[in-house]
């Protein structure tokens, strides 16, 4: 028993952080995507914490742009967890496989398998089970798959009852499987011989060949899964995440007079009288929600202020933004950092770039430069 635990402890992980996170703009204009708080914690920290929980001691971040502040902030946060963080910088975007070749030296220092994950994924991370299952079948790689309702929009994975993957089919017109690649893998270092140092797709140029050789297995994910790389999915993912916290009877969920359903409120936030918060709301540190505001299915980021009698549904309110009195915002409205929405306005599906002050209603979805 002790022996297996120790072995597990030597597992490394590589997280594909990638580029600028343009899909999550305007939030990512102010802060690198991995640092954008999802349910009051940077997206990346959800993954690193789960990895640490599974005994991972070294995390490699594959990034294609330099962001010194991000590196500093992450290193600081991660050091508390007792895990080392290494940045692997791409000089040109290398896709989803190329970064593995770039980090070849780090990944091939041991014969132990390593985790690879996309940075946008939020779920109940199954790293322990993944490692256990991977060792049990003894093949080169295992990918986590998740069930989706509409598989025709994705690439689906077909596999045998024992988990061995037979094929990948892009956007199938006829139903053949409802399982898709969940963006989390465990691979033996031998897989590195299949990867070249060039822009390369792991989904298209590596996995199909591993499957052909009978070297790739699938493990089905239990529970929720969401790629939170764009605002709409970010909010959907938040709802799923809060529901899972409720199912786990987490004491993190806020329980107060003005709260409806699953709500996360940072202890440093202040909530006024006569508000109705929830269901599915996350309120960050130092946020001020004034009297009589109603917030549903939204994320309010650090230092923002929602003024009296405002009504928000399906919104992300950026850091230090101010939502005026009697404002109505809905339909995936995203305010960037330090945005001011003047009193009594209506914002329907507005994407507002940072440091903007809005004095006119936005009745139809629109990007406000």
């Amino acid at each position, binding site marked *: 028993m002790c022996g297996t635990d120790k072995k597990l402890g030597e597992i490394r992980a590589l997280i594909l952080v990638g580029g600028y996170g343009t899909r999550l703009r305007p939030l990512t204009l102010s802060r690198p995507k991995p640092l954008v708080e999802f349910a009051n914690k940077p997206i990346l920290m959800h993954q690193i914490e789960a990895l640490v929980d599974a005994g991972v001691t070294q995390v490699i971040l594959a990034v294609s742009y330099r962001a010194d502040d991000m590196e500093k902030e992450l290193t600081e946060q991660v050091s508390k967890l007792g895990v080392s963080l290494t940045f692997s910088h791409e000089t040109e975007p290398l896709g989803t496989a190329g970064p593995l070749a770039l980090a070849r030296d780090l990944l091939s220092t041991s014969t132990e398998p390593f985790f690879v994950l996309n940075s946008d994924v939020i779920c109940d991370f199954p790293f322990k089970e993944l490692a256990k299952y991977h060792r049990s079948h003894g093949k080169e790689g295992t990918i986590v798959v998740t069930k989706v309702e509409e598989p025709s929009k994705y690439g689906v994975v077909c596999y045998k009852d024992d988990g061995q993957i037979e094929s990948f089919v892009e956007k199938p017109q006829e139903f053949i499987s409802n399982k898709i690649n969940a963006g989390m893998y465990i691979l033996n270092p031998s897989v590195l011989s299949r990867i070249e140092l060039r822009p390369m797709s792991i989904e298209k140029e590596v996995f199909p060949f591993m499957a052909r050789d009978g070297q790739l297995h699938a493990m089905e994910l239990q529970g929720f899964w969401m790629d939170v790389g764009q605002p709409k999915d970010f909010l959907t993912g938040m709802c799923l995440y809060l529901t899972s916290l409720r199912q786990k009877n987490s004491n993190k969920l806020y329980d107060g007079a003005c709260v409806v359903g699953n709500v996360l409120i940072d202890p440093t936030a202040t909530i006024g009288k*006569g508000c*109705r918060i929830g269901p599915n709301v996350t309120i960050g540190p130092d946020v001020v929600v004034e*009297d*009589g505001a*109603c917030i549903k299915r939204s994320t309010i980021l650090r230092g923002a202020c929602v003024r*009296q*009698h405002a*009504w928000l*549904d399906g919104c992300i309110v950026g850091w230090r933004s101010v939502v005026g*009195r*009697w404002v*109505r915002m*809905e339909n995936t409205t995203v305010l960037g950092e330090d945005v001011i929405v003047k009193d*009594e306005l*209506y914002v329907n599906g507005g994407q507002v770039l940072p440091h903007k002050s809005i004095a006119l209603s936005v*009745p139809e979805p629109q990007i406000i430069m």
Partner: protein
Amino acid sequence: MLKAVILIGGPQKGTRFRPLSLDTPKPLFPIAGLPLIQHHIAACAKLEECKEILIIGSYTTNTMAQFVSDMQKEYHVIIRYLQEFAPLGTGGCLYHFRDQIRAGNPSAFFLLNGDVCADFPLKELWAFHAEKSEGLVTIMGTEATRQQSVHYGCMVRDPASKAVNHYVEKPNSYVSTLINCGVYVCSLQVFHTMAEAFEKKQNGFYSGNGQSGHPGYMSWEQDVLAPLAGTNKLYAMQVTNWWSQVKTAGSAIYANRHYLELNRGRLDGRTAPCQILPDVFLHPTAVVDSTAVIGPNVSIGAGVTIKAGVRIKESIVLNNATINEHALVMYSVVGQEAVVGEWSRVEGIPSDPDPNKPFAKMDNTPLFNTDGRLNPSITILGAGVVVPAETILLNSIVLPHKHLSRSFKHEIIL
């Protein structure tokens, strides 16, 4: 002694004011807290010499009885309602009731269209008319833009004598920017002119010269004013006071704002129940939470309930309506007994005259544009309409007694 006549038409008229006129006859629709034609009555009653006000229309006497009796008490002047039973037109009904108007031999009478609103300068108008010994009728005129003038009666005046040399009602091409405001002073001799016009109309009717309708039908503007032009019997006094027609529902909000401004001070002496941004008319029986914020340009009717954290601006809220917590109402009319749910937003689009054009008037745009789309206008909730909590109603019209179940934008809800 002077008299005044107010022409209010009937239920078949003023349909562009629907759905506001579905519940209340248009002349009685409250603007700045007073029925539309009470503003006329107040202006007439202010004149010491004015001893009698005759209201002529085709609404039933029942419809008007309460109002007439209320006015009588309030203004201490004789007020009577005369019902016309046949569609006689603006001239025809006046002629029909000529004996009532002439009774007591007044020196002149004011004639006011019920569907205009203005800061009626009746004293100045009377003084102007009294100077013109030849004059039978003096028209209150105002400046309009070239484009908009053709929607009104257009007048060409002699610059020195102020006599009207030419009068055309709603011309097809530009005639003059001086337009007829629908406010007049008439000498009793005008009935002689009307008798001639009446005879001409009747002859036409019985000789079957393409005349249809009622034999007594006569248009004041076309059959009386137009022929008087160029005879030195018709004058126009140009004013710069505020004036507007009230045709569409949207003009109610515009008129509300101006009447509130004119009547400023009516609330003075009362303690405001909440934060008020002037001008606001608040009926004394309205129940308003201290955390609400009301104004500018809001009229709140009798028995209205306004709950905590409500915001209302540029709107009219009719009797016994309820606005629930945190709701926002702007550029809208909330009907009698209507209910707006908590955190709901009822928002219209103002259809004010172009502020960048001098002398621009309210554009009385039709409900739909040529592409069949609803033109932007104020939002109207008919009587008894219920707007559920947390919804938005934008640029929409809801007919009476409808209970909505969701948000609506740019729609008419039947």
